[in-house]
């Protein structure tokens, strides 16, 4: 058969979501000749449609459906309806992401073994390891064109990087470079190289940054075996009397509801929507939601330990020019409990435009101190801090009493920092501040976390079915033809930006799904 597919075609693999996990899985399956339908809740905006304007782009791309928040994280106070800054569009959050593509460190696959018991943390080892993942990482790096791999040269450092690098060198940091970025430093794979436009977060208008939107998806479509259906917002996964999933109910652009039948369903809606969909699909057979015999669906929500440091200097930096995040210090990524916490963190350059700087520098801040910082905008440098946070069972996506536009329970996102997260953040703020002080900062601004971009862990992978939702292949422990293909399968978060790992897991999962289908096991 060939795309597009009929609603009653029950031979297709249905993937929910078209981002790093879903978009990659869709192409990988299509390349193997498997009939695949990706249902994407958002619309399709091609690269030329992207907008070099932060708020306008946010309106174009961001997932703005109803969400509620709770917990002691500051986001719940400052952005109570916006717990996460992720995307509702074809390409998912790979349209918005910065491009940082780092492998986990080997010990991070074994957090429980490495860190031991951490009070209040629901740590678990991944059922897979670095050696097993290495070939899939290599495939992902090649697919995505990651700099400093496969002979691909590094990106040039921009002004923000120059300040960052000089500070890092004065601090004695050794592992300092412009990153492993899925952004073309030279023309590759039919796409041009980075034009240093400075709007990575708004969707790259030059398509120099890897996104499934203009790589995996069109490649899959060219096979005739992949259909991407935009404005198809999945409401429920359906199952038969045998407990196997049979299809999904979705709403189209006009709100009309349809059922797409399926042989296999893979959920890749990011770590808020994926568990919410499983919970909202509860039935008499599965009263606690699909694939939830462990009770872990929605639990262990992680968002990475994050923060930023911005600093003002007596001379201009113009840090908004050029790649948003091409600069990294990796010296603090190690596990070294002598610092007062387990796990580690990365320091990565970051710039925001003026409108978002106003919104995020110190949310809720006002008065002359705030305004003076904004007055220094073109004399600022900036970095983002991203580190491993502790999974906690009480941090969770649950169904809210409030309803979304379809009358379904909205997700509530509950998060409170673990003491380890706080200790790590304070250390990172100190180190980032010292870096900028070392190159003559006149003011430093320790900036709190933004709405979450790295949402992880809410359908976690476990060796034992009682500890998690999916097995080592992302296949749910409870339902053989139901898979999870996004960051929600992360057992622990590691210090690194998650996209490369999500893509690597999707490539690996595609091999497994094809094999299982070939054996008629699913």
């Amino acid at each position, binding site marked *: 058969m060939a795309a597009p597919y009929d609603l009653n075609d029950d031979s297709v693999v249905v993937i929910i979501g078209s981002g790093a996990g879903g978009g990659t899985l869709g192409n990988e399956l299509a390349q193997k000749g498997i009939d695949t339908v990706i249902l994407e809740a958002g619309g399709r905006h091609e690269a030329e449609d992207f907008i*070099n*304007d*932060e*708020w306008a782009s946010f309106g174009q791309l961001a997932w703005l459906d109803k969400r509620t928040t709770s917990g002691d994280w500051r986001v719940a106070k400052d952005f109570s309806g916006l717990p996460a800054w992720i995307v509702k569009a074809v390409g998912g959050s790979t349209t918005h992401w910065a491009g940082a593509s780092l492998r986990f460190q080997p010990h991070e696959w074994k957090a429980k073994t490495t860190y031991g018991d951490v009070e209040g943390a629901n740590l678990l080892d991944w059922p897979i390891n670095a050696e097993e993942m290495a070939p899939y990482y290599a495939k992902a790096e090649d697919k995505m064109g990651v700099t400093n791999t496969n002979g691909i040269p590094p990106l*040039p*450092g*921009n*002004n923000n*990087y*120059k*300040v960052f690098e*000089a500070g890092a060198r004065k601090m004695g940091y050794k592992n300092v470079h412009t990153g492993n970025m899925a952004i073309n430093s030279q023309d590759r794979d039919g796409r041009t190289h*980075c*034009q*240093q*436009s*400075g*709007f990575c977060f708004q969707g790259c*208008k*030059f398509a120099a940054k890897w996104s499934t939107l203009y790589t995996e998806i069109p490649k899959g479509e060219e096979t005739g075996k992949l259909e991407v259906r935009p404005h198809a917002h999945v409401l429920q996964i359906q199952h038969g009397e045998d407990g196997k999933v049979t299809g999904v109910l979705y709403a189209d652009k006009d709100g009309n509801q349809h059922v797409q039948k399926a042989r296999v369903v893979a959920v890749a809606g990011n770590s808020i929507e994926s568990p919410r969909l499983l919970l909202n699909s509860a039935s008499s057979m599965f009263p606690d939601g699909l694939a939830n015999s462990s009770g872990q669906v929605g639990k262990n929500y992680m968002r990475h330990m994050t923060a930023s440091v911005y600093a003002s200097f007596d*001379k*201009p*930096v*113009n840090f*908004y*020019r*050029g790649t948003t995040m091409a600069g990294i210090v990796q010296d603090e990524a190690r596990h070294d409990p002598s610092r007062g916490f387990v796990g580690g963190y990365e320091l990565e350059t970051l710039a925001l*435009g*003026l*409108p978002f*700087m*106003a*919104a995020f520098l110190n949310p*809720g801040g*006002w*008065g*002359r101190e*705030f*305004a003076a910082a*904004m*007055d220094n*905008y*073109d*004399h600022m440098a900036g970095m983002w801090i991203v580190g491993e946070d502790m999974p906690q069972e009480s941090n969770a996506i649950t169904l809210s009493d409030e309803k979304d536009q379809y009358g379904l329970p909205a997700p509530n996102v509950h998060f409170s920092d673990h003491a380890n997260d706080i200790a790590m953040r304070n250390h990172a703020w100190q180190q980032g501040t010292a870096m900028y002080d070392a*190159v003559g900062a006149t003011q430093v601004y320790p900036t709190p976390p933004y709405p979450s971009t790295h949402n992880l862990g809410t359908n976690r992978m476990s060796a034992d079915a009682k500890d998690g939702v999916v097995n080592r292949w992302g296949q749910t422990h409870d339902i053989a033809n139901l898979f999870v293909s996004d960051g929600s399968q992360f057992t622990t978060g590691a210090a690194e930006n998650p996209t490369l790992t999500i893509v690597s897991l999707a490539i690996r999962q595609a091999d497994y799904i094809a094999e299982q289908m070939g054996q008629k096991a699913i």
Partner: protein
Amino acid sequence: MMTNERGEGVNRRDFLAASGKTAIGAAMVVGSGTLLLPSQGWGMELKALKPETMATMLQMARDIYPHDRVPDKFYAKALRAHDDASVDDDAKKALLEDGVGDLNARAGLKLTNAATEKGGYLDLGWEADRVAVLRDIEDSDFFQTMRGSLVVGLYNQKALWPLFGYEGASAEKGGYIERGFNDIEWV
């Protein structure tokens, strides 16, 4: 000659000669529904809010985000949506009118005659004194409505970006690859 928002030429002397004019802070109220910023050739026809209320909101906006190189008109533009919204939204209008009334009361000077008297908040000559009043109400709906609208409405004005050294959209200029993405020499 100044131009108001509707592009109508207005002559300052005519307004000064008109009855009911009064200066409030940097702004000037003319008649019953117009707020002028004489030094900037910019005015605002108010549809719902009292001009005196808007004049106080304007000062409050400057005190929330005090950028001394940013002219009043940018703040006024950011506040205009409040007036627009107040036309059909009595609750919003009341929130703002009552909020300003409360601000004036807290400033210790009662507003006795809107047409001829200065407002209490505006009589506080030093920013620090006004900010002390704002700190007392910063958790109120009124303050948060003002701050929340300004943080987008002020900083998202493209015409204001050059004052902060932000260049905005770059793709149509080919990005910064040939335009200074790595041009600093001081580090």
